[in-house]
Structures are given as structure tokens and as C-alpha cells.
């Protein structure tokens, strides 16, 4: 039946990028030199994804310290603060501290899209952003209600998305990893789905993907997410394949389009393509929508070479399934 394919998000930094970033922080490299190094690294990663034959590619986001940071840095009334463990990874993000409604100083995504959309052809360039629910919930908030903040973030993300699509983005991915938490409640998923719908509304013709990863969500959470007005719902299958299979068997895949995170982005094994093909076929049996395959999470917590290798393995899986 075939499947579209895309890496879920960012890539690891090469040794060179790490060094340039370090030198920039020390002041021995200018901002222009840093930007040039990041652009080269991004172009290379786009090339690697094209070579793997992926349908949608990302610019790799190698300059993002964590998923929230570029937005935190381009908005007023929010600053990055202390470190906190990011889900079950041995990796830490900086907790954004909001002291008021965020106001944009500039756009994060559109300038990147202008730079890379043409380069990404014939693949579509995908932009990735943190979902308003996860963003607000993983921040420290002072002087406004958390829900009010989530609404404000959704509004800003809507503008980000509109500008990114105008600049040429062909897919928009909204990440809500927090909803994979086994303690997440249905109400939270309902809110997250509403906010994601608001962001996705601004995406025009681009494909919109709501992505939940690091674990498989609970059934009632998944049900609420199925209601989101996005083109596609993306699940991390490989972190808990049995629970994912059970969930999909009982609740089905999202009508229209569903993405399955099959390539393990958190280990360095070469994934077993035969087994994954079987798993894919069993999960999508009788499905009439458009299936996609992705990495289980972002690739940014792997060593660089393995990040690139995993993109290639994803491409091989897609090839095996038949490109749509």
C-alpha cells in the first residue's frame, strides 16, 4: 500500500557544529559565522534525508538547544531558566519562565523555510514546533493562568505556521509529547487537541501532523487526540509496540492520515526491516487513510553518525513498503 516517510524532528549536531557553537559562546566566532555553519550543517542533513528518499525533510534544527528554546528566545516575557530532565532521557531542557503573556520579537520558522524550502525539493520541507499544551505545561508560569498561556502560545504558533507555509513549508508538525504520559488526563488531551486545531487552521494546504511520542498514550487520551482538526496523527509505536498495537486495534488510526514511529530513534541498533514491515502491515490492515512512517522520536539524542544512519534506515523501510 505504500507509506510517506519523514524523520520526526531534529538531528544531532556534528563535531563541527558543536565546536562553532562553543566558540560562539566564548566570543571567538561572530553571529554571521555561526549562522553560516548552521546553514551548511542543515543543508547537509537535508541532503542526507533526500538521499534516503524521505517524503518530507526537516532542516535538522541543529541550533536548537531544546524544543522550546528558539521560541523562548524570540518572545518577550519569557526566559530560559534551570535544567529539568526531559522525559525519560538522560538529557535536560531549560524550563521556560513566563512572567506575562508572550509577545513575539520575530519569527522562528519562516526565515528557515525561506532558506531551505527550495533546497529540499523534490521533498517537502516540514517545520516542527512544540505544541501549546506541552509548552505551557512544561514551563514555569507567573502572573497568568497556565491555560491562558497555552492559548497565547497557540496564537503565536498560529502566526508562525501561517508565515512558514507562505514561505514554502509543505508540512507542519505540532509536538505534544507530554500527552504520552500515562498520567495525562482526557481533559488535558481535549485541550491539547483544541489548541493544535487552532494552530493547524493557519497551515492552509500544508499537511498538519500532531505528534505524540516517548511513549504510547492512554486510550482515553488517544481518543481525544483523534478529534483534533489536523491532517495526521503521529504515534510512537516502537517505545511500546504491544500497547500501541492494542490501542490501534481498539481505537483505530486517525481517519485520513496516520503516522507510525517505527524506527527506534533512541538506540543505535540497525532496526529489523522485516519485522517492521510485518508490524506496519498488521497495524494498517484495513486502513483506508494515508499511512506514514517516521522515527519514534527526534534523532537529536543519538550520536551524529547514528542519527544520519537512522534516517537512511527509515528510507529503506519506506522503500520496502512502497513509496506513495
Amino acid at each position, binding site marked *: 500500500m505504500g507509506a510517506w516517510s519523514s524523520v520526526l524532528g531534529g538531528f544531532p549536531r556534528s563535531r563541527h557544529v558543536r565546536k562553532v557553537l562553543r566558540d560562539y559562546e566564548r566570543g571567538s566566532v561572530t553571529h554571521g559565522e555561526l549562522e553560516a555553519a548552521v546553514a551548511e550543517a542543515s543543508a547537509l542533513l537535508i541532503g542526507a534525508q533526500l538521499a534516503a528518499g524521505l517524503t518530507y525533510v526537516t532542516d535538522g534544527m541543529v541550533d536548537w538547544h531544546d524544543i522550546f528554546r528558539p521560541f523562548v528566545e524570540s518572545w518577550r516575557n519569557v526566559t530560559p531558566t534551570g535544567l529539568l530532565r526531559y522525559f525519560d532521557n*538522560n538529557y535536560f531542557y531549560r524550563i521556560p519562565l513566563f512572567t506575562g503573556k508572550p509577545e513575539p520579537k520575530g519569527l522562528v520558522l519562516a526565515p528557515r523555510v525561506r532558506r531551505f524550502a527550495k533546497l529540499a525539493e523534490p521533498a517537502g520541507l516540514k517545520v516542527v514546533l512544540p505544541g501549546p499544551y506541552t509548552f505551557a505545561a512544561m514551563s514555569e508560569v507567573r502572573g497568568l493562568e497556565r491555560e491562558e498561556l497555552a492559548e497565547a502560545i497557540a496564537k503565536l504558533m498560529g502566526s508562525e505556521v501561517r508565515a512558514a507555509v507562505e514561505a514554502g513549508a509543505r508540512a507542519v508538525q505540532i509536538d505534544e509529547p507530554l500527552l504520552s504520559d500515562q498520567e495525562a488526563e482526557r481533559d488535558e488531551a481535549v485541550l491539547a487537541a483544541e489548541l493544535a486545531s487552532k494552530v493547524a487552521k493557519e497551515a492552509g494546504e500544508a499537511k498538519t501532523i500532531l505528534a505524540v511520542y516517548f511513549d504510547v498514550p492512554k486510550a482515553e487520551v488517544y481518543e481525544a487526540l483523534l478529534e483534533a482538526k489536523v491532517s495526521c496523527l503521529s504515534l510512537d509505536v516502537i517505545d511500546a509496540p504491544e500497547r500501541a498495537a492494542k490501542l490501534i486495534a481498539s481505537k483505530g488510526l486517525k481517519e485520513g492520515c496516520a503516522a507510525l514511529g517505527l524506527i527506534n530513534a533512541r538506540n543505535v541498533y540497525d532496526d529489523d526491516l522485516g519485522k517492521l514491515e510485518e508490524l506496519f502491515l498488521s497495524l494498517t490492515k484495513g486502513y483506508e487513510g494515508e499511512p506514514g512512517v517516521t522515527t519514534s522520536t527526534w534523532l537529536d539524542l543519538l550520536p551524529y553518525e547514528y542519527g544520519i544512519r537512522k534516517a537512511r534506515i527509515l528510507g529503506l523501510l519506506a522503500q520496502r513498503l512502497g513509496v506513495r
Partner: protein
Amino acid sequence: MYSVPKKFPTTIVGSYPKFSAAQEAIRRRKAGEVSEEEFRELVKPAIREAVEDHLWAGVDIISDGEQAREDMVVYFAERMRGYAVGDWVRIFDNEYFRKPIISSRLEWVAPMTVDHWRFASSISQGRPVKGILTGPYTMMEWSFDLHYKDRRELILDLAKAIRREVEELVRAGAQYIQVDEPALSTRPWREDAELLKEALDIIFRGIGAKRIVHICYGKLEKILPYILDYPVDQFDLEMVNSDFRLLPYLKEYGYNKELAFGAVDVHKLQVESVEEVEAAIDRVMRADVVGPEKAYVKPDCGMKRLPREIAREKMKNMVLAAQRAREKY
């Protein structure tokens, strides 16, 4: 011989801010300028400073400050057979560490911590020094595996290697053995908790020392029912940072081991006053989970990320608060 107080003994989780001698030694070892033996010697002045700080504060059961350990997983990976040189992965911002890669069967080769344990004990003025090892679950979770492809097989081999190190420490005279498992609470699943139990059985069976497991942060309450029968004498837990959320659960499940509880927060730069630490002890006592004889007072977690002055002051106030608690309870 120093006698540890019967009520509210004070202790630490293990890591302490790195002194410059240790930083320099780690750098030189990485650059290949010194051998393992030379490295061990070079670290000792830093261990001396860490031990002196513990003594200055009056902590009863101390550590070597883990001065030799650049990272709790990498340190052991570099000294076991079966690990290949790790590859760079991000830990935060633009900070990277070499995440170890398991490339063949894991085996203990030679003592990894005994020399520094012995050195710390020789200058501790009789106070007991904990033997502290990174646990098999955390070693597994925070490494890449290219060899086993089976978590159970992998963790059991790690457990055998760690068991061997425990035996060496006990033979050298260690009375307290602590296994650190910070990764456990990040994946609070029953299967994982049970896997670690099997591993701890291997590590601790028949060991004639106080057996401790340190676990911190995350959603521990979700797996509490599956860990309370671990073969250990003492759980060493974070408490302040999560506002003592675990206490009612411990009560509910009929907790009956010793409890070393966090009474100062290592994520806060502000030094808790003696009264604040006392209030933390009071909270644990009010929860009626353990009596004063089974209650150990300590920081939530290792103190390596704190500035040294703050770490020292936090320990000092903790010791003073425990002294007051001994009069009260």
C-alpha cells in the same frame, strides 16, 4: 572508632562539587597524559578536600565526593570489559558527553572504586565511608547497546560485574554499600522495577554490609509496590524537591526498611536554614513511616552541581538540624 548516632544519622548521597585537582586529573587522563595509576594519585588531594568538608560539617557517614567520576556511567564503563569508547551525545544546551556503547559481553576487570574508598577511609577520622556504585539499571539505560539486544541478559551481566566490585569493597572493610539508580524513576514501569529487583538480588545476596539503593525524582509512587521488597536494608530517596509527595504512599504500603530521606534540596542554590531542615525532619516524623532509629538525614541527591560553599553550608545546617531532632525525638 567513630560511633554513628543511634537516631537520625546524617549522610550524603555521594557526589560533591569537583575540586580543581580532580578536574585537572580528569583532563589529563582524557588527554592520555597520565596512566590510570597516576590518575588515581592525582585525584587524591581533591578527595582529601571533599572529606575535609564533610568532616567540617559533621556528617556521620561520608563519601569520597566521587571526585574521580566525571560522569556516573562513563566512569564505570571506562573500567569494565565490554564497553567501547562512547560517542558524543547531548546532555543539555551544547554540553555533550561520551555516551558509552556496549559492544561485547560485560565483565568486571579490576577494582574500580576500592582505592579511593580506602584513601577516604584513611582520612575520615573513623567515620564510615560509603562504597557507592552506579546501579545496573542506570548503567543499562544510559548506555547504548550493540551487543545484547536483550535487556534482561544485559542487566544481569552488569549486576554480576557490580557484585564483584561490591565484594571487593566489603573485603576492604566497607560497611555501607550504596547502588545509585536515578534512571529507574524515569521509566516507572512494573517490568522495569522487577528487572532491577532481579539484578539487585545478584548484587546483594549474602553481602554483610548495609545495603542501600538511592533513587531520586520522577514518579516513584507508581512503582513503589514493586520496589519495596528489594533486597536492601535502606532506601535513600529524594523528598524535599517533590514536597514529600512520597510519604503517604510509603505509609500506605507499610514501609519497614530504613529510610534515608532528602532534607535539603540540591537543585536550589539557597541554603536551607537549620529551622527549615528541622521542619523537613518533622514532616517525615509526623508521617509516621519510620522511627528516629531508622531515619537517616541527607540531601535529596548528589551535590556535584552546587557551588562548593553552598554545598558545605547545606551539609552544616543539615547536621545541626539532626542534632536538634535527636533531642526532640
